[in-house]
């Protein structure tokens, strides 16, 4: 249940009374009072003298994330970090990607290799579709070592393929189990249909949403209670496209799974193509995580973290209007 905290005496919650659903995103629309003025007061600014009642704002606490979502979310943090970093360790064992079933070493799609210049100097060279880029220091050659991804990006930091595989294959199961747990919950609780699926209205507003995001103008007040359309699309794409893709392409690299389900090879265009798609999906995750964390910081770090830890999210409304 949501509770309302009134900041400043004398103002009445007026139309904002009444129960609010557990899921903020599903709550009944408030009587429109747009445009909402930007809130100038920080969320947890304790007591305010009664004298300020004229401009006081109403702080509403909404229960935004239910426990299973919060558990699943935080489990994903170490799981994804470990999977990405141990995956880069595995990549380092053969730092080239191909399409098709075979590794045609003369024509990789991408390769990251140490190469000696004519003067005998070691450089890290990243080759994409035949175009060479000098990436010394990060890719190909870093800290005096011939390695595709640098030590700080891999688990373990030293070059140990066997241990990287052990980490990766253990946490791959953790991702799958956590993913199945979340998916089951999200469908049964209708989290997917209520909160994640963009509505027609959402999609029609996508142009404005893009413009707002570009200038870092984020939804406030009532609009902040539900996921905005870009957020919904990002979650839907990651949860229902990229995550299954990364699991399926991972499985396609297994010779036993290919024996059991040969159509996986057809679907991805071969085992090496599946490895390449796995890599691209990984960096889609990296991109998502970077933007996700950035948005968490930009839209009120402590409020966001609190809502993912305790479930409670604070929304500010200008009162007395």
């Amino acid at each position, binding site marked *: 249940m949501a509770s309302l905290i009134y900041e400043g005496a004398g103002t009445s919650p007026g139309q904002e009374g009444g129960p609010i659903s557990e899921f903020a995103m599903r709550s009944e629309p408030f009587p429109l009072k747009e445009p909402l003025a930007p809130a100038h007061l*920080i969320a947890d600014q304790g007591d305010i003298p009664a004298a300020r009642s004229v401009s006081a704002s109403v702080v509403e606490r909404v229960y935004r994330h239910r426990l299973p979502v919060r558990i699943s979310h935080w489990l994903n943090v170490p799981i994804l970090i470990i999977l990405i970093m141990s995956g880069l360790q595995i990549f380092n064992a053969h730092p080239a990607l191909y399409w098709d079933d*075979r590794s045609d070493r003369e024509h990789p799609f991408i390769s990251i290799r140490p190469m000696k210049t004519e003067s005998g100097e070691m450089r890290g060279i990243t080759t994409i579709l035949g175009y060479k880029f000098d990436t010394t220091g990060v890719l190909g050659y870093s800290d005096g070592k011939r390695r595709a991804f640098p030590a700080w990006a891999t688990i373990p930091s030293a070059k140990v393929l066997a241990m990287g595989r*052990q980490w990766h294959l253990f946490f791959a199961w953790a991702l799958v189990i956590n993913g199945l747990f979340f998916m089951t919950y999200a469908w049964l609780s209708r989290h997917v249909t209520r909160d994640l699926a963009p509505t027609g209205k959402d999609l029609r507003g996508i142009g404005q949403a893009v413009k707002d995001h570009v200038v870092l103008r984020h939804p406030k007040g009532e609009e902040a209670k539900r996921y905005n359309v870009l957020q919904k699309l990002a979650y839907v794409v990651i949860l229902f496209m990229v995550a299954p893709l990364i699991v399926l392409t991972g499985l396609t690299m*297994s*010779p036993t799974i290919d024996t*059991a389900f040969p159509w996986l*090879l057809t679907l991805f265009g071969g*085992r*090496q193509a599946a490895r390449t798609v796995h890599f691209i999906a990984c960096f889609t995750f990296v991109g998502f995580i970077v933007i996700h964390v950035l948005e968490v910081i930009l839209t009120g770090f402590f409020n966001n973290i609190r809502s993912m830890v305790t479930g409670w999210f604070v929304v500010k409304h200008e009162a007395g209007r």
Partner: protein
Amino acid sequence: MIPHERAMERRQFLKGTLGAASLVALAGCDNLSQTSWFPSILSKAEKLTERVQRAVTPANALAKEYGEADISKVFPANGNTDPGTEEYAEHVAKNYSEWTVDVVGMVQTPISWSLAALKELPSRTQITRHDCVEGWSAIGKWTGVPLGELLRQVEPLPNAKYAVFHCADVDEDGIPYYESMALADCYHPQTILAYELNDTPLDIPHGAPIRLRFEQQLGYKQAKYVMMIELVETLSGIAGGKGGYWEDDQGYEWYAGI
């Protein structure tokens, strides 16, 4: 405190916390990797993988077989590319005429096959994909005798659970290469003792004169230079006890289905 000061303090706190946390976490992962207990927890995943993969894979389902046009122009050879021992050099000099594959251990009748005898048995040719643990794949055309054929002749005892492949190659410390697989997998129609790659007798880098093809698993399971196949009930008494050279030495998975 005025709001922007507070925001700055928060930012500082955030930066410091994240930086410190990531350093501690990375060092932690490295330390955990070096303990004995943590990797043993990680390796539980191998058992789960084996159980699930065996459950979803029909016993005689075939690995994809490719066409002639798909064969890799270069089939890289990995691991030991020449046993380098005097004994092996003698075999090479005699064109493997005295090479035998002995099937021993928990069997009714141990049998020793010469290379010529193996080639007289029914053969199977398959164009399959070889997946190295490093990540690359190569496609080759293998001809050899189905291992199940040999096993039917030696008649394994009921308690035999694994086939151990003893090889002619040794590492720089003199430790011989060996591998093992579940006896049940030995009867898979594509599991063969290969003596030809791409229509020519195996060369030394690819395991001459005999190597295993076990198409459901990774490259390091495909033992080269096979001299003896020993049927056992448990792998614990053999070398490091983990069922293979790379398993003992590096901690690679014994069940290399993925």
